[in-house]
């Protein structure tokens, strides 16, 4: 349907009011980098659209050891923040300069794979998401947010308003592997965060993108790392577990086979980087 109404609320109450008035027919758009192409091509023909660019949701601040990211903070804002280096790396590896100026962190959580690279980093960082609606606010760990391909816990009358990232000094590695070096869909995206206890891995997060219906955790691989010192065989075992546990798909960029193979390889390369970093720091 030709868009009859475009709303650009100037505040969150106004946005919630519009959502309540128009219900699920209202297409909610943040940066527009995913929705606009579909509308331009006539694939998506919504009757009414609400853009969140002016709704005052783009603050990005550090408070109480947490990086609080407004849902419509842009990827460029993410690239500029100093608090969480892995998020800079993730933003740097996402799309192009112009798209990063438009695309939002919140929107990245709704981008279907193989997109959604920032969400992979957020998953590895134990991010939480705040959703708000008529019943008030609720906070979920990002790990519990995704429910399937293009589905999640957000109710039709809710908006995603904020992402919280605990600021820690844990070593991290973010690798996006695509067919090109920039502005290209991922074959696989790997985000790893470790917590060391002396020379031993105390806790591990391995998040993967483009190898599942949404960003996923490699839980088996994470478990295998705990208690190791990232010895070669520990890395190999974790990489194999990650490759085996992921759910890759075939698209025009890569086959399921290649994605699985690259998952193992890049989990391994990420862990090797962390092992070398640990050596460098004298662990």
């Amino acid at each position: 349907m030709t868009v009859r109404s475009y709303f650009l609320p100037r505040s969150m109450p106004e946005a919630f009011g519009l959502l309540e008035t128009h219900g699920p027919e209202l297409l909610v758009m943040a940066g527009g980098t995913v929705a606009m192409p579909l509308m331009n091509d006539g694939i998506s023909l919504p009757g009414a659209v609400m853009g969140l660019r002016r709704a005052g949701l783009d603050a990005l601040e550090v408070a109480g050891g947490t990086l609080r990211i407004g849902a419509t903070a842009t990827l460029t804002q993410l690239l500029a923040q100093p608090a969480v280096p892995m998020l800079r790396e993730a933003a740097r590896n996402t799309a192009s300069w112009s798209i990063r100026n438009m695309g939002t962190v919140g929107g990245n959580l709704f981008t279907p794979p193989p997109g959604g690279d920032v969400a992979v980093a957020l998953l590895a960082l134990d991010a939480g998401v705040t959703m708000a609606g008529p019943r008030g606010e609720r906070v979920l760990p990002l790990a519990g947010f995704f429910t399937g391909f293009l589905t999640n816990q957000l109710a039709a009358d809710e908006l995603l308003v904020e992402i919280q990232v605990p600021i820690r000094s844990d070593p991290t590695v973010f690798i996006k592997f695509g067919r090109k070096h920039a502005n290209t869909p991922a074959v696989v995206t790997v985000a790893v965060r470790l917590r060391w206890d002396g020379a031993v891995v105390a806790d591990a997060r391995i998040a993967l993108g483009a190898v599942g219906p949404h960003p996923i955790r490699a839980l088996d691989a994470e478990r295998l790392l705990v208690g190791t010192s990232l010895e070669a065989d520990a890395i190999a075992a974790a990489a194999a577990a990650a490759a085996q546990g992921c759910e890759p798909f075939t698209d025009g960029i890569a086959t399921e086979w290649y994605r699985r193979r690259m998952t193992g390889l890049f989990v391994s390369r990420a862990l090797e980087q962390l092992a070398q970093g640990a050596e460098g720091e004298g662990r």
Partner: protein
Amino acid sequence: MSSDLNVVGHSVQRSDGIGHVTGRTQYTADRSFPGMLHLKMVRSPLHHALIKGIDLSAAERVPGFVRALTARDVPHNRYTILGLIGVEPEEEFVLAEDRVRFKGEAIIAIVAETETAALEAVSKVQLDLEELPAVFDVEEALEPGAPIVTHWGNNTFMFEGHPCRRVRLGDVEQAFQRADYIVEGVYNTSPIEQAPLETTGCIAVPEANGRYTVYTNTQALYFSLDNAAIILQVPGSRLHFVGGTVGGGFGGKVDVIVEPIATLAAMKTNRPVRFTYSRAEEMQVSSTRSAWRIFIKDGVTRDGRIIARKVTSYADSGAYSRQTPYALTKHAANAAGPYAIPNVSIDAYCVYTNRQPTSAMRGFGVTMASFALEVQMDKIAEKVGVDPWTIRFINAYHNGDMKPHRKLVEDATLIETMQSAATLVGHDLPDDLRAMTSAPRDAGHDGGRD
């Protein structure tokens, strides 16, 4: 050498450069006209199907809908652009009649006040299609019992009575018997999109004097006008085509796809009509470079001379051949490469499949032949035990040699070009190769030819 002339050979600044760097250059879609309508196509969602029915009623109710054009509205509903130069048969339709042969084939043109309204109306057209079996592989398409794409009962384009373009010189089979080595290769290439940054498009404008001005980014202005006049069944004098400035072509804008139907829409509505491909249409619907499957069998002597070359090529034409038969002829003329080979047999097939049609692209019929041949040359070098440079010098054609299509070589400079490349990259050529020239082989000496 370039300095012996006053202007030619000098890097004068481009006359259109200022326009390009200031954005003042006017491309087709940069024009706009009062009351301009927008045309979008209803396309087949299936690769091969019979059209059983079309229901336009919901589309007609979309606000901004102006009218629909179907096959019945097209005066001469045949799209055979090479008919202008005598290539037959008439096989394609401007708008599909009872059958669609590829996913994306145009069925109904929708004209609306805005592009969005046109897209919405397109989405509301109900098609009743009966799916038919489809074929997507050139060799499968030639097997007995394969789904038939064409209306004449097999899946090959006929070249004056032959199912392929043939080139014959000498006797390859006999030469294979005498060869010390046989080297065989099979090469496959994928279809490729021309992908000019400006998509294919035009605007047809009714003029006060009863003529139609068509602003178009075609690569071939008169070719488009002449074909449009045939399809529209109007004298060429009714049409005025304006173009000449194109945002990239690469062969993708030699098809006369948008102009006839946009002009027809302008005739039917008496309003300017714009028809420009979306990027997705450019990629998924417009003609591509053909995929090729090329079989090469070479007979080679111990000292590295190729004495026989047999090439069997299949170009995947897609559902309609458009300019591809011409590419096959060009391919056949070049499928032995820039080499002097006394015995050559080439069979080049233009094969129909239920794929998006193919047509011209940069390197028309030759690019993929060059790929196959030049990889094959390396395989021969390895088999014979010489380096990749030497095998090419041994076999390079000279002026006065006869090509497989029986024209004598006139402008050969392969040897000199290879010598320059060797110098450029610092590759040390042996003295005998460094001393070679493309000059005709010595009289009374066959130049090593068999």
